[in-house]
């Protein structure tokens, strides 16, 4: 890790002034579990860390007429345990409680979760976010078993690592961003962007901005579930995840939001899958149809065709879980 100076603002307004003008100059320290790893590997080498944990007003979970407002510093552990979240946005509580490990959930913040960097093994071993060498993609030439199957037409081939972001998008949540010019709010689905150059990041923040809150709108009657295809019981990066939120009209789906994680450089909202389900009752067959639609445009990079199949399974199972249907077949 390289040396840096360490700033401890106490109020949100102080933060933008402490941040840099371009990415990498300054990093925000919240939970720190991802950031410190990146700094130890010198993937990021900031000259300054801004520890925002002393900033007032970023720690609270509040209820605003059925909406959950989460300060950016709320930890995954607290989200999982909060009765308000369990009651109003159970899929969020459950996804937060299933993320990573207890030690990480105790420190990882919701804001940090959204801003964590990709786990692409070329990126993490120092070959850049886009992993280009001599103008060629190391990912395309190399081992892309975990890489993107959607949104993979450009140079970015990593997958968005957050397991919480798809859940927030399914709930139609937004983030509040504070910058030098004041506040703005952005839907989480718009927050993530696919970078085209090494100088960009994977989201809509500018270098001198930070997330102050995540706001999850009321979801009365929404039936939601997420599903993660993960080989190990705990603490393992998934092959694919899916978050599904269904607004029901009696027994048929009035509208659906279906979002996949770990399949694209951003959380991937599938309008195709949502449309496939709209106006229909959820059955094995309609769930299957929607799941197929979700990956209809997916494309293998050579070694990751299995992810197309696994993402499809994740979507199907999340849809079925949302309405409480047992997964196909059942356990042996």
């Amino acid at each position, binding site marked *: 890790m390289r040396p840096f100076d360490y700033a401890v603002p106490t109020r949100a307004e102080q933060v933008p002034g402490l941040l840099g003008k371009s990415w990498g100059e300054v990093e925000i*320290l919240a939970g720190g579990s991802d950031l410190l790893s990146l700094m130890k590997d010198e993937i990021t080498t900031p000259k300054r860390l801004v520890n925002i944990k002393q900033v007032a007003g970023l720690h609270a979970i509040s209820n605003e007429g059925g909406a959950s407002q989460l300060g950016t510093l709320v930890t995954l552990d607290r989200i999982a345990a909060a009765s308000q979240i369990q009651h109003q946005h159970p899929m969020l509580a459950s996804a937060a409680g299933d993320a990573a490990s207890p030690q990480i959930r105790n420190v990882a913040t919701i804001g940090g979760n959204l801003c964590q960097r990709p786990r692409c093994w070329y990126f993490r071993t120092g070959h850049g976010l886009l992993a280009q060498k001599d103008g060629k993609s190391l990912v395309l030439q190399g081992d892309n078993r975990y890489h993107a199957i959607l949104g993979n037409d450009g140079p970015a081939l990593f997958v968005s690592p957050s397991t919480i972001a798809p859940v927030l998008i399914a709930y139609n949540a937004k983030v509040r961003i504070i910058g030098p010019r004041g506040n703005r709010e952005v839907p989480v689905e718009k927050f993530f962007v696919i970078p085209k150059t090494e100088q960009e990041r994977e989201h809509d923040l500018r270098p001198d901005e930070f997330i102050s809150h995540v706001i999850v709108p009321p979801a009365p009657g929404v039936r939601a579930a997420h599903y993660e295809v993960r080989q190990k019981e705990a603490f393992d990066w998934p092959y694919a995840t899916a978050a599904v939120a269904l607004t029901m009209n009696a027994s048929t789906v009035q509208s659906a939001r279906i979002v996949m994680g770990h399949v694209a450089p951003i959380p991937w909202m599938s309008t195709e899958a949502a449309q496939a389900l709209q106006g229909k009752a959820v059955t094995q067959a309609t769930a299957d149809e929607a799941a197929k639609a979700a990956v209809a445009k997916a494309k293998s990079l050579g070694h990751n065709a299995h992810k197309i199949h696994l993402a499809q399974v994740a979507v199907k199972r999340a849809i079925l879980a949302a309405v409480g249907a047992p997964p196909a077949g059942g356990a042996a």
Partner: protein
Amino acid sequence: MDDLPEKPAKHEQSDKPKKSKSSSSSGVSRRDFLKISGVSAAVPLISHVGALAMAEGEPAIHGPGKVPVSLNVNGKKLSAQLEPRVTLLDALRDQFELTGAKRVCDRGTCGACTVLMDGKAVYSCSVLAIDAQSAQITTVEGLGEPGHLHPIQQAFIDNDAQQCGFCTPGFVVATKAFLDQHPNPTPEQIKHGLGGNFCRCGTYAGMRLAVMQAAKTKGA
């Protein structure tokens, strides 16, 4: 802006940090930083967001050189001069000779460095020492010692939940945090509640028994 006087850094701790020199050991001085970023650390850009910040003081900035760091570990106050980049794990091990927490992956994955901060299990490799100053820290040494072992530690011995023992302190501490939250755990809860630690020798069979035994032991 280059001529702005450096403000002494402020911190919650009473000890005033020495003005960080443009030490060549770090390769970067604070003055350099001001040049590079074009941002004045001493004068936050509060003009955009009103004058409130000025009224309540400016954000403290420490380092990059050594600054006084004071930790509360196992009920004792421990102080040292550390650069901000020193992790809690390295401070415990190299400054205070508390080597129970181990450095294995050093990337927040393996759990061998687990300590309690305010009763919650954390990876001490992924916390900066300077950022751990307000917390009550408990390491495996603080749970018990030979002759006065904690029931969890005794349960690990009774069920031979260790071989080389390098992951053991992390597991013991993680188990403490886990049982505090789940006094009567189910096997399913153990799978996830202790999912943040890895053992290479393969002692999970004994560990599962140890956790159940400790849960049954009063005072665990």
